């Protein structure tokens, strides 16, 4: 379970959000909606350890996560809006790089694990391609696989449907559902209210529920 208590973020004397409280249960799919520039991305970046918060507590499965920028773990997987795949590695190598270097897993075992994940995502025939050879939707699935292989306790998506056509958007919805069945807790940042309603168990309206 993820518990966010009284989280406050200011930037250059502007309050992005104040005293934010949010709880996400295990296996839940929660969408956070609201217009751009309101601090949704900042929130998941804080959860992933990429941004610092000014005050507040984040607890993940009863372990408190520091919000002061000292995180080094991979407990929160993040699917970036522009994916940030490593251009110099193939899809497969993008996925196994962290297991091998961070978790010190044997290369053959890492490859087996990676193949099974990209198989689930329908990307097995793209394993040996480089990111520039992939479409937007394929890049996204590669990014999802790269995050999943580290077995994060939460998977957070930043605007997963932006820039995708209708077919790819449906595919993302399918992936979210598949992962939900596997018990993956998912947090989706989106301004697409319709997509949010379809895929999530609960929608959190950032603009209504968060003080600034």
């Amino acid at each position, binding site marked *: 379970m993820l518990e966010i208590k009284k989280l406050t973020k200011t930037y250059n004397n502007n309050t992005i959000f104040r005293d934010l409280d949010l709880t996400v249960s295990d296996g839940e799919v929660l969408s956070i909606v609201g217009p751009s520039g309101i601090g949704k991305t900042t929130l998941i970046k804080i959860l*992933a*350890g*990429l941004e610092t918060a000014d005050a507040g507590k984040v607890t993940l499965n009863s372990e408190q996560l520091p919000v002061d920028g000292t995180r*080094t*773990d*991979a407990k*929160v*997987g*993040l699917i*970036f809006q*522009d994916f*940030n*795949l*490593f*251009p*110099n*590695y193939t899809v497969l190598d993008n996925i196994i*790089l*962290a297991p091998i*270097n*961070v*978790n010190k897993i044997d290369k053959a075992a890492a490859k087996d694990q990676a193949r099974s994940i990209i198989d689930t995502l329908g990307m097995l025939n793209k394993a040996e391609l*480089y*990111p*520039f050879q992939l479409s937007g939707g394929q890049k996204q699935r590669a990014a999802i696989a*790269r*995050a999943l292989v*580290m077995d994060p306790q939460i998977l957070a998506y930043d605007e997963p449907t932006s820039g995708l056509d209708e077919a790819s958007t449906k595919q993302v919805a399918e992936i979210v559902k598949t992962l939900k069945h596997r018990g993956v807790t998912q947090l989706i940042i989106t301004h697409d209210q319709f997509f949010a309603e379809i895929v999530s168990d609960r929608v959190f309206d950032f603009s209504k529920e968060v003080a600034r």
Partner: protein
Amino acid sequence: MNYFLELLPSLLSGLKMTLGVFFFTIIGSIPLGIIVSLGMKSEYFTIRWLINGYIWIMRGTPLLLQLIFVYYGLGMMGISFPRFEAAIIAFIINYAAYLAEIFRGGLQSVPRGQYDAAKVLGFTKIQTFFKIVLPQVIKIVVPSFGNEVINLVKDTSLVYVIGLGDILRAGNIAASRDVTLIPYLLVGLIYLIMTAIVTVLLRRTEKRLNIWR
């Protein structure tokens, strides 16, 4: 032909010197250049200030002068190196400054998102640099790096000023002894061959790196 064979031993011994300066400079200036380029991004003002001063001096004065300074100048101050070592030191610190500027440009062109992605996956800063950032920097800098390597092939001829016998000096001696320009032609040809080899190697490297974008 006979004249050519006559010249060969002295030219070859000069070539050995030229290649020695070339390879030691490459080996020393690449890592130093990388370290300097990372130092340019240091959060400490003093480090950035020192590095900028170093680069300014290295790029702002002739390499010839730097060679003279390292060998004769430092010698007068009681820090003396043998000629070859002095030449290598001068070349390495000079080329590291140029390479650092090139690497800095390469580092700047790796997007912030690459570092973010690495951090979220749990990579340490060192792993991020060597596994993710450096390979991308290498691809970006290969063309400008190649220019410097070709310059280096020719710049090695400056070592004559501290009395080292490189290939140009060998040609020079033969030319004035035998009153002919043929040794110069041969020396020119050998430089052309060396730069051609470097060019081919660089092209191949570029091609190999072009499998990803």
